[in-house]
């Protein structure tokens, strides 16, 4: 059951650079009225996702500090893992500094993400619009 309209939607942010994560959460909270969860801990992510508390996930691709079952996991693998654990279809936005020719197609195909943004991502309104579109498409 979708949450009532006045409940703020919750965005999971997985990003290994703390300042970038800080920007996402500030931008989404201030310009979009979202609530944000920032974590690099997979167990914590899965708990949020399984509880149905996450409406959309923004994933970085290169994750240096995120491990799962003994190996470093990247955003592509994480996208599949989160989807497997989500009670309903989870929209995923890849946000990455990989911006060479072909990266977008390759990473979108590998992850099954709904959308893709290249860093630098610095316009709060633009980020909020992307997230809202994805939420709308998914509802």
């Amino acid at each position: 059951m979708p949450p009532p309209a006045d409940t703020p939607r919750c965005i999971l942010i997985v990003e290994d650079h703390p300042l970038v994560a800080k920007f996402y959460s500030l931008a989404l909270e201030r310009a979009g009225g979202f609530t944000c969860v920032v974590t690099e801990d997979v167990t914590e992510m899965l708990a949020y996702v399984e509880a149905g508390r996450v409406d959309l996930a923004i994933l970085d691709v290169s994750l240096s500090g995120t491990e799962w079952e003994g190996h470093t996991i990247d955003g592509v693998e994480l996208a599949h893992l989160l989807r497997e654990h989500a009670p309903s279809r989870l929209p995923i936005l890849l946000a990455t500094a990989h911006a060479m020719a072909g990266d977008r197609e390759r990473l979108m195909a590998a992850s099954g993400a709904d959308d893709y943004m290249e860093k630098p991502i610095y316009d709060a309104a633009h980020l909020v619009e992307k997230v809202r579109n994805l939420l709308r498409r998914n509802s």
Partner: protein
Amino acid sequence: MESFIEEMKRYLGFTEEDAAVLRSLGPRLVKYFPEMSERFYSQIPFHPNAFRVFTGSEAQIQRLKHTLQLWAAGLFRGIYDEGYAQERFQIGYRHVRIGLEQKYMISAMGIVRAYLNECLVQEFPATDERMEMSRVLGKILDLDLNLMCESYMHATVQNLRSLNEQMERANRELAGASHTKDEFLAHISHELRTPLNSVLGFSKLILDGLCASPEEERQLLKDVFASAQHLLGLVNDILDIGRIEAGKMVLHVEHVGLRDVLDSTLPLIAIQAAEKRITVVDETADLPLPAVHADEVRLRQVLLNVLTNAVKFTNEGTVRLRASYPDEAIASSDMLHMPCIRLEIEDTGIGIPPEKREVVFQKFVQADPSHSRRLGGTGLGLAISRRLIEMMGGSIGLESGKYGRGTLVWMTVPLAVRQQEEVIQA
């Protein structure tokens, strides 16, 4: 498989009888050989390109005229076997080597043929006999010319093949270099975008009026500033790596007082160390340090990089700086007998696992990238440091700290015993 000479003999219809005819002809023609070589050399050196080949004096031409007479003697020896073929091949190879082109050889041989036919007219007044002799002479001259031309072709094919190999090798190297360059570019692009995200993102948040308070604005501005500083570090490191890899890093190596270098470097990390309550101990403080053979600016860069790492990756304890003179025995094995001083910077920080101790000297590799993301750093510092130290004739490496924790970075720097000044290019 039929050899080239056998194939040609069959094609020309060259028989044992022909060989016998030539053998009997030799003694009658030998007196014409000097004049033959005169005519040959009146022709061949005056071709525009062939002329360049005959750079020697008149003595060289005299020697060559003699060689041509030996060649003619061979022509009438009556033995036309593989040995004969080899001898003729060698003439072609030699011509290719000195750059005498086949077309000049062919036209000069035409003169030889015409002259020998004139000789036959002198020697054999009877037309029938002369016709027979001329026919046989024609066969052997054809055979000979074909052998020489074949060797020209072989030599040319060989040259082409080796050129081809060179080109293939160059192509492979270029492809490899281009791939490395693409990877490097992708990496740089990735590394630059992350701090740019903070610079642009936070300043835009402030400009959009999305901050909750002036205090928050100020905090975000601090983040912008730190990210911009990180960007500057990246740009400088990228320029250094670019210079090193393009072979354009130039070191000005001279006699440098190590004391001065240390005294001007250590204060640069004092503030960071004090903020983290880390003690920096300079165990060399009371030692008379020697002059080293180094580029002062670059040596300071390396020391600062290593010391900054030590402070960055240490949360409590000390960073120690030591100096010693390595054993000659150890020193001579990898330092080309150059007397060196060994500097050690040891910390009590998080340490580096043994399997990571070499890879951290590679570009963009960090022992644990998550630490560096939080603590800054470009992943290029140690790669640059190693190249700089090696260019100065020293070496640099990592060990475990003496008490089983932390990291010990050692480096050797050649002592100032060699020539005064030197410019070294990567």
